[in-house]
């Protein structure tokens, strides 16, 4: 028996979300009285023994030329093969773009119930009960996974990485896999390097129709630059072409859960809130004291964004200079 955690590394570094997953997986293993095994299929020079500190008793590096494809079918076969070899009863992945492609496949392949986007440790007192957000964050559902083998795709940022242990041994294993990739990544168009990718951003500055026009976004970008935040927008702003579509957050755009979300000139419609209501702290700047967004906010400033935003930027500059 064991708990298997699928981890990822980029640019020679283990992803933070993978450290979270190993911390999570080792707690699940402790609750089940078994060991946590971490798996990596593309280490790219990262020091994987580090994963021991987060609770993995062993790290397996799976080797096969086809893994360079990042194809979900190949990755699923690889993880399933390792899961069988270590007798995994729980497989943990991260609910990021690779995890979202792989975890459901793994679930179907292993006939293992899946909770995608889990936010809590399993409650084993009432079965194997895991919580996730549903109805775009307007409610939570508590799921029992009733199959013998279970797959959990962990929501990034739901737990904090905890490094209390010591380095683990790393073992390389040649995998058979047995399927070949039918997809080919032809190119990765990178966002300009000075911009922070929205889904990953811890700090986000967002603006809506209250900005009146695209020519006024300078003050929003100035604030974002000083804060070190990614920029986002409401849907109508993307639809009228004031801002690029990938900045649209909400129920039908990108769903985010940063530490800080600053909303400027956004009314706070229910569909907008659905994509941002899981932010840790929400600041709302709006000239209408009745704007619904204030009900979802932690801090509010009632007034004209064109006056307030530059002042806030100055205040951040002062703060940054002193810290």
């Amino acid at each position: 028996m064991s708990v298997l955690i699928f981890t990822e590394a980029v640019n020679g570094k283990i992803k933070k979300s993978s450290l979270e997953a190993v911390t999570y997986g080792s707690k699940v293993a402790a609750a089940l009285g078994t060991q946590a095994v971490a798996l990596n299929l593309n280490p790219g020079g990262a020091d994987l023994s580090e994963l021991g500190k987060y609770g993995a008793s062993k790290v397996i590096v799976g080797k096969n030329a086809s893994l360079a494809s990042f194809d979900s079918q190949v990755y699923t076969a690889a993880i399933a093969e390792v899961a069988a070899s270590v007798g995994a009863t729980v497989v943990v992945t991260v609910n990021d773009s690779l995890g979202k492609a792989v975890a459901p496949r793994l679930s179907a392949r292993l006939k293992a119930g899946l909770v995608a986007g889990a936010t809590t440790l399993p409650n084993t007192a009432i079965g194997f009960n895991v919580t996730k957000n549903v109805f775009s964050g307007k409610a939570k559902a508590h799921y029992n996974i009733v199959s013998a083998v279970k797959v959990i795709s962990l929501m990034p940022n739901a737990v904090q990485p905890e490094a209390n242990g010591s380095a683990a041994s790393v073992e390389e294993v040649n995998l058979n896999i047995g399927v070949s990739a039918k997809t080919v990544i032809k190119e990765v168009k990178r966002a300009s390097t000075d911009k922070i990718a929205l889904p990953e951003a811890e700090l986000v500055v967002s603006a809506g129709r209250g900005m009146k026009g695209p020519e006024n976004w300078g003050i929003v970008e100035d604030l974002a630059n000083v804060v070190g935040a990614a920029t986002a927008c409401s849907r109508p702003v993307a639809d009228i072409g004031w801002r690029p579509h990938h900045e649209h957050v909400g129920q039908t755009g990108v769903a985010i859960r940063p530490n800080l979300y600053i909303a400027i000139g956004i009314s706070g419609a229910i569909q907008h809130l659905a994509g941002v209501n899981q932010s840790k702290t929400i600041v709302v700047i709006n000239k209408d004291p009745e704007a619904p967004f204030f009900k979802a906010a932690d801090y509010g400033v009632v007034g004209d964004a064109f006056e307030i935003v530059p002042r806030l930027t100055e205040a951040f500059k002062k703060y940054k200079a002193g810290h």
Partner: protein
Amino acid sequence: MKILVCISQVPDTTTKIAFTDGNTKFAEAGVQWIVNPYDEWYALVRALEIQEKGGSTVTLLNVGPAANDAVIRKALAIGGDDAVRIDADPKESYFVAAQIAAYAKSESFDLVLFGKETINYNGAEVPGMVAELLDAPFISQASKLEVEGSGIVCERPTEAGVEVVSSSTPVVVSAQKGMSEARIPNMRGIMAARTKPLKVVAAVAVDTLTEVTSFSLPDAKSAVKLISPDNMDELVRLLHEEAKVI
């Protein structure tokens, strides 16, 4: 291309979320049902755009009870040749995926299109499961889809940037914003939808792997703290000292 578009029925985006039966069931009384926006705006419309270039068929598929027929007709009003409803309560992702896979296998589709997730359960679970059950490649959360020769090319935003991915067919794709623009059904579409074939198919027997034991509402947010517009230093101080987010 033979295209299958899987559509789910979800509560209207403005629905007030509440539960009954000791918080074990979603309160459906008075709820307006719509086609899941990702399925309608992106998956279905893109399928129709491909069809409009000629040589393709578009079939809509829903797993659900007879009460879903109204929403299936709403989708047919946007377009599509015909629809299939697999007659079952869509209990959970694996159960639904197994139904879709069984049907898709029997009809050998070239392209099985999904929305990226349902707005009620936010699972993003069904499409990948179907891909695995069909032993097919899967491009998840695609924001662009073009047919090229006998295969497809998609764009897919990831943490690292936008991937350009090609695949052979048959292939499973889940669609998100960017793939197409929402269409509003016109009178002709609504009239035509009434007479388009809607076939009802019996479900296959499948084990369920998960069950919802209860629902709960998020912890109530404490009241907003209002800061004077003249004191932005105070806001920054609170973000640092109280909220501890900077």
